[in-house]
């Protein structure tokens, strides 16, 4: 059988495993639509413009099974990045009550998405309404098959001080894991979220998360997302945010994991006076392929968006960056700034980057810049001449490269732990910083 046929028959079994009895009709409709789209689009090939540099042949060649609940005990405990009282853990896309800790917090609802679907009527207003699945085959599949996930709701005016940590662990082999995350920040609410994807040991699953975020008027959210799954796994995600007027959303995508790690991150700026950050730090080593497609849609006037992508590429790894910015006709006085930079640490490392600005308004300030470089020999020599050993000099320079983004993460503990992870990912031991 050809890879495509194997894939179709296997995905058929993944789709069939979903128990839709008693699900509300809006969800059944979403699932049907998702299944239809995924069957129509299948696994994209490199002829698809959006997948030009990332081959999914290996994904199509696996006999995928439906996701099953993970073990009660891990081979390896996940690293937590926040020092916080509010943490939820999902194992194979299922909310784990034993590992989660959600103390009563004023204005915050944080619970299993499966429960929320039955208990919180407002979920129907948002779920599947933010993420555009029509041309995202794996988000469509997620819609068809997700069993659980997280529902995070901030009441109007809620100000949650502790960082909210969401940890996704996948465990086992050959499964399609489809976590679904819905975050709704009502008017004037504020919170900081760290969302992490990791593996229990060397799991080889296909993780296809969909994260939907709604940021209402005057709400202020900081959202860090770390993708750090095992190097044998596949991670193909959609992360979509809708912002209303006067809101602020600062997002940081740290992509370190996966044999293939692909993220489509879309932000719709649907109001005036919106502030948006869409930043990324990518570290790819070995033969990893890490592919980020970002899209900012400026619909209305007077909004600012800032995007900085820092990509560190070693060995034979490949990194893809595609950054779309649409400035629509009514989006006068838009200020949009995009920078994407790659630091190549080896001769065999590859970067494919494509900024894509489409501007239909005339009174706007939009800039973009892309650079590709290596560690500067003059920097290195200057540091060595002061006694700093070559390896340390390189580590400091790599850190400095990523720092412009990492320094923006406002929680000190989260930032420091992520920095440590960046170093360990690069195989650097610097001791005390």
């Amino acid at each position, binding site marked *: 059988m050809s890879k495509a046929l194997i894939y179709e028959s296997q995905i058929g079994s993944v789709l069939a495993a979903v128990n839709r009895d008693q699900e509300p009709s809006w969800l059944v409709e979403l699932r049907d639509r998702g299944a239809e789209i995924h069957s129509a689009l299948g696994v994209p090939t490199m002829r698809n413009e959006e997948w030009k540099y990332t081959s999914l042949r290996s994904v199509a060649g696996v006999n995928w099974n439906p996701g099953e609940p993970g073990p009660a005990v891990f081979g390896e405990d996940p690293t937590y990045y926040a020092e916080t009282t509010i943490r939820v853990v999902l194992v194979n896309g299922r909310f784990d009550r034993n590992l989660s800790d959600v103390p009563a917090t004023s204005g915050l609802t944080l619970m299993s998405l499966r429960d929320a679907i039955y208990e919180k009527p407002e979920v129907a207003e948002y779920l599947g309404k933010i993420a555009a699945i029509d041309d995202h085959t794996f988000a469509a599949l997620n819609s068809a098959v997700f069993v659980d996930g997280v529902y995070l709701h901030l009441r109007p005016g809620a100000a949650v001080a502790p960082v909210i940590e969401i940890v996704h662990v996948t465990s086992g082999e050959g499964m399609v894991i489809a976590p679904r995350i819905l975050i709704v920040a009502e008017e004037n609410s504020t919170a900081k979220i760290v969302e992490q994807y990791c593996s229990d040991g060397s799991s080889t699953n296909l993780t296809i998360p969909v994260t939907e975020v709604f940021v209402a008027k005057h709400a202020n959210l900081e959202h860090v997302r770390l993708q750090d799954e095992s190097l044998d796994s596949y991670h193909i995600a959609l992360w979509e945010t809708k912002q209303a007027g006067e809101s602020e959303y600062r997002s940081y995508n740290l992509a370190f994991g996966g044999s293939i790690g692909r993220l489509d991150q879309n932000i719709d700026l649907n109001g005036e006076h919106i502030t948006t950050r869409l930043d990324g730090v990518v570290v790819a080593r070995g033969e990893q392929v890490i592919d980020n497609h970002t899209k900012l849609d400026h619909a209305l006037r007077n909004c600012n968006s800032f995007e900085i992508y820092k990509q560190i590429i070693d060995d034979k790894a490949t990194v893809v960056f595609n950054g779309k910015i649409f400035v629509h006709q009514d989006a006068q006085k838009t200020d949009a700034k995009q920078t994407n930079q790659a630091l190549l640490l080896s001769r065999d490392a590859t970067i494919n980057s494509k900024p894509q600005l489409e501007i239909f308004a005339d009174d706007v300030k939009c800039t973009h810049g892309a650079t590709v470089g290596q560690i500067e020999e*003059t*920097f290195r*020599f*200057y*540091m*060595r*001449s*002061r*006694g*700093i*050993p*070559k390896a*340390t000099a390189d580590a*400091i*320079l790599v*850190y*400095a*490269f990523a*720092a*412009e983004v990492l320094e923006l993460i406002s929680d000190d503990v989260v930032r420091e732990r992520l920095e440590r992870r960046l170093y360990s990912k690069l195989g650097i031991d610097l001791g005390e*910083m």
Partner: protein
Amino acid sequence: MLEIKNLHAQVAEDGKEILRGINLTVKPGEVHAIMGPNGSGKSTLANILAGREDYEVTGGEIVYRGEDLTELEPEERAHKGVFLAFQYPVEIPGVSNTYFLRAALNAKRAANGESEMGSMDFMKYIREKVKQLGLKDELLTRSVNEGFSGGEKKRNEIFQMAVLEPSLCVLDETDSGLDIDALQTVAAGVNALRSPERSFVVVTHYQRLLNFIVPDYVHILMNGKIVKSGDKSLALELEEKGYGWLEETVGV
């Protein structure tokens, strides 16, 4: 301290010969000034002492405290007390001056079997140096040389030197681009470091600096060779007569 014998060197990339037989002996505690026209090889010599890999030594030797310097990596030279104040200090965005210096100092201490200096002690130590050199505290938190004015960069080189306390200090045109007050601060910083165990090689175009940092010897480098050596009066003579006079007398 330093003995350079018949040193020949070329650009590694294209084999262009720059140094054509340099001889120079620097004893502990001495200050040697090197003067010479643009492009004569002064910075090349300074960079070779620090271990820049763009140059290849093709003949002769450099002996530093009885050891063949050319065998050592740049960081090893620094650990053993060699310091180069760059003609063009490098800007390193994203690396704070404090972090940079602490990494440098502790690497040197570790290489010499000393314990690391903790961050509290280190801050106290460098704040003192900042004060001694009349610098601003904000310099410490800024990225290495990033956005510094020309004069600030040069002063930062002397600051780094004061922190690392090297034995052989090579100053490559540290006086260029300094206003008269800054020149005096830099000279005072250098003079404060003068000691019987510490030697200086000072590359300059201007006799003016040598009023403040009084050299024991002045050498004139032309076309990759030291064509004339003398005491501090040689610098005055040069100021008066220019290099043309030497071209005639020594025939380069």
